[in-house]
């Protein structure tokens, strides 16, 4: 059972790291929660001399949780000024006016 919990915890820790890197917002809490649960269960099921791996998984899970909470709280949803896109809009409008002139 301990091995199963370690495998599951490792799997969800990897997913948690991926979701933490990606800008998925609160969705990252799902794998992190599962990683924490399975890491804790693996920790509980491990003998005192075999707690190192579950402890590492727990720490990584906790760190990803901290990072995601920080991103949710401090990183705002905003768009950057895109000069190329702005220029494309201007060009598109100019081209449209010429096209409309041709229709009249």
């Amino acid at each position, binding site marked *: 059972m301990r091995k199963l919990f370690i495998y599951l915890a490792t799997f969800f820790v990897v997913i948690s790291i991926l979701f933490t890197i990606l800008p998925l917002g609160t969705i990252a809490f799902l794998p992190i929660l599962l990683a924490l649960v399975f890491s804790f269960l693996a920790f509980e099921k491990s003998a005192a001399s075999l707690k190192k791996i579950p402890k590492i998984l727990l720490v990584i899970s906790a760190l990803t949780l901290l990072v995601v909470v920080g991103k949710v709280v401090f990183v705002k949803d905003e768009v950057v000024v895109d000069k190329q896109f702005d220029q*494309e809009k201007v060009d598109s409008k100019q081209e449209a006016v010429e096209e*409309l002139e041709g229709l009249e």
Partner: protein
Amino acid sequence: MKKILLALCLLFSFESGFSQIKPNEKLVYAASYKMSGMMTQLAQVSMQTETVNTSKKTYLHLSLEAVTFSKWDNFFKIRDLYESYVEPTTLKPSLYKRNIYEGGYTKSEKYVYKSDGRTIVCTTKKKNRPETTKTITVGSSSQDVMSIVYKLRTVDFKSFKPGQIKSFIIVFDQKEFPVSVKYMGKEKLSVANLGVKDCYKLSISAKTDVLKGKDKNLIWLTADAKKIPVQILFSIPVGTGLLKLAKASGI
């Protein structure tokens, strides 16, 4: 993203009538996408109107921009621009343009409406493919997907009863297809900088594989003369999305 934007456009309907749409109106939405049962903020969608003058005519320029939030730009950058140049009172389109950039994929389309209102010259250019031109004939009441968004707001929903359905035709991807809108009644919604508003709740369905589910594609319009689209919920084959009005100006 194409499906998402088409779904958004389909979440509107139209009816012949005179325009209540003013120039210099700007509506900004936050677009979210549902993943694993949770919504994540994905992009900003802006809809704007402005007057454009040529040497002989005045047009209303309707535009919709979809831009991913900066946190998404490194993973899947979206810069979509939909435009329609319409007659200001009837909202009849003369020119429709679509330029999309979605994660490296590009496509541009231009529909030039001939004076008979039924013939459209469609020019399309996809990434790494040559430009193609095709002439299609459509019904006289067909609208492009941009102008239909604004046509919706000319409909008098006061006279609608819950369950009442109206059918329409739109042109997208060089094809015509029917769209129907069902009036579902009124609901109160908290609307960005406008406070709590009574809203018309409408369900949209289309004979296309873009929209999924029964009464799962919904739009709420303020139940006043302006009929501002304040919330849009849509279900497409790849998930569920939500647009919420974040800011309205010039209304």
